[in-house]
């Protein structure tokens, strides 16, 4: 049994201009102890997908799915109370901005022991002892004196360590890290990633690493899910995906990495992510795709099994017949000839 099973998840927000579909038909499975990287540009729905799994979609957002289970429990029919017993205990989340994600009016110690007392039923003393242990585990020096510190007295990196300590406090089966290093400077980023990976291995936790940084994914994830405009574009084993991306979007993302540029200017992807009003009829990436055809602009591709994973594209890059098919479907892409 997979730890997380999501089938055909969609999250919608009613807006004045109509219904905004932030997540559109996302399906995924996560095994225990697996590390999944979720990448995509801002607004691609990667965070919202995981917030839906956590049950944290803010009002008036609506979550729909054919299946949404965690550890065998159906999250679609679960009561609020049961859900709260799960969140923070078996599935925990850390966020992008450590400085604003901790409550400025309470001490580190209070915020840390709160989870322990709620989920583990510890008394004040036991929770305090455990909190000190946890701070030690996440590499905070002199943890005992830090318990009485307020978040504004610690640096961003230290606060993120506190967030991690809070998240792993009840030995969760799944940890969702939503861009955990984005707000931190580069040297601290590496430390936090190391810490997360060490904790993941020690505890054999499932780990979902949401990021827009391909480099972070390459260092950590076993499997990668590339999202675009609320949909999964490609989902494959990390090594395969980096060696031979199958979706033009993935390829373009990888080409834009500074490490992969061959001198001169960095590669970019022209255009922007479609918004509420300009959502294409066909493939969502087609307006920006170098290989778009009449067919891909009119018919939206389904997510289908491909090369050991899944892909949502009419013309996967590894398909030997793709050139012929593209020619047959009247290419309209900007660089289709090359």
């Amino acid at each position, binding site marked *: 049994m997979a730890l997380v099973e999501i089938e055909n998840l969609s999250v919608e927000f009613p807006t004045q201009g109509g219904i905004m579909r932030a997540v559109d038909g996302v399906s995924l499975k996560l095994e225990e102890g697996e590390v999944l990287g979720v990448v995509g540009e801002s607004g691609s729905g990667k965070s919202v997908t995981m917030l839906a799994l956590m049950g944290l979609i803010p009002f008036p957002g609506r979550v729909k799915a054919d299946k949404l289970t965690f550890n065998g429990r159906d999250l679609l029919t679960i009561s609020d109370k049961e859900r709260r017993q799960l969140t*923070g205990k078996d599935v925990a989340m850390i966020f992008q901005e450590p400085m604003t994600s901790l409550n400025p009016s309470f001490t580190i110690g209070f915020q840390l022991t709160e989870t322990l007392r709620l989920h583990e039923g510890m008394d004040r003393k036991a929770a305090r002892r455990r909190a000190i242990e946890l701070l030690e585990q996440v590499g905070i020096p002199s943890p005992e004196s830090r318990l009485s510190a307020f978040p504004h007295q610690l640096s961003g990196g230290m606060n993120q360590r506190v967030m991690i300590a809070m998240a792993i406090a009840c030995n969760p089966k799944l940890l969702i890290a939503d861009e955990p290093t984005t707000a931190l400077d580069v040297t601290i980023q590496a430390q936090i990633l190391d810490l997360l990976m060490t904790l993941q291995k020690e505890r054999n936790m499932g780990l979902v690493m949401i990021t827009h940084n391909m480099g972070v994914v390459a260092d950590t994830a076993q499997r990668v899910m590339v999202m675009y405009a609320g949909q999964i574009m490609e989902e494959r084993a990390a090594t395969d995906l980096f060696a031979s991306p199958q979706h033009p979007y993935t390829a373009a993302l990888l080409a834009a990495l500074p490490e992969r540029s061959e001198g001169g200017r960095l590669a970019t992807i022209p255009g922007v992510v479609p918004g509420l009003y300009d959502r294409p009829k066909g493939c969502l990436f087609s307006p920006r795709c170098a290989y778009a055809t009449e067919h891909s602009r009119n018919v939206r591709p389904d997510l289908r099994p491909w090369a050991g994973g899944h892909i949502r594209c009419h013309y996967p890059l590894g398909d030997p017949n793709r050139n012929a098919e593209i020619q047959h479907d009247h290419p309209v892409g900007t660089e289709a000839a090359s």
Partner: protein
Amino acid sequence: MAAPPFYVQPMLRFILTRVSLIIPTFLGITLLAFFLIRLVPGDPIETLAGERGIDPARHEQLRKEYGFDQPILVQYGIYLSRVLQGDLGKSMITQEPVITEFAALFPATIELALCAILFALILGLPAGIIAAIKRNSIFDHGVMGISLAGYSMPIFWWGLILILLFSVQFDLTPVSGRIDVLYYIEPITGFLLIDTLLSDEPEAFWSAVRHLILPTIVLGTVPLAVIARMTRSAMLEVLGEDYIRTAKAKGLSRFRIVALHALRNALIPVVTVIGLQIGVLFTGAILTETIFSWPGVGKWLIDAIFRRDYPVLQGGALLLGVVVMSVNLLVDLAYGLINPRIRHTR
């Protein structure tokens, strides 16, 4: 990075800064009270003489006795030097020391002001919180509409309407005063609610309560409106913060998130507003006490204006000013207590 030993040092400096600000404010109040009352036509002697008038020679003699014949700046200098020695003078009407009269009347004002601010807090905080949680609901619109009306209402008009409705029409509450004339309560604390409980007449307590109801509502209306609106907007802002999402991700109950994690932060601006309302409260007390013949310092000051009782007006305004400044200082200290970021910086 190292956590400094908090509290003492910055807190002490904070208090000293605030206290030193009191001195110019204090001088300002003496200036205003002294010169403004002298801009009003007539003098205390004429008022004392009343309609019968007074012999001009006798008038001149009395003016000399009270020192009103001196140049005005000299008068101010004499007044100020006396104030600095702790002498606020005597009432020209009753010949009682100003400080004695103030001390006798002030508990009545405090009692009313405390009841009013409690009334405003007990209703205003929950109303603001619920309005924020259920924003754009009928409750929210209702609370915001009513509070806007309450905020805009002239106090004297509101008081008269309530008297007409509850005292005259329904005969539910007394029209004026602090307690029925039937009872004589020995002033121990000066707070009637406490003194009546200490006395052997339990009925007197309920009489005092009934007398307090309308003045409390009238005086508490504006602070209530302000607190409700402020709580709502502060709460709305806080509920959208990242740390509330973190609290939800911890699996905390909705009640705990709102009542602890959100409220603690939302209270910071609300406490500031409450502090500012204290000043408004005393201004309002002057009107409210006059409407309800409430024997407090507000009514005393109004009477002093009509009688041109210079020492009472000057001394009363000064003492009230000191009280407001002290309360504001206390509020600022409370602000430091609930907001750790203030406590540890600066």
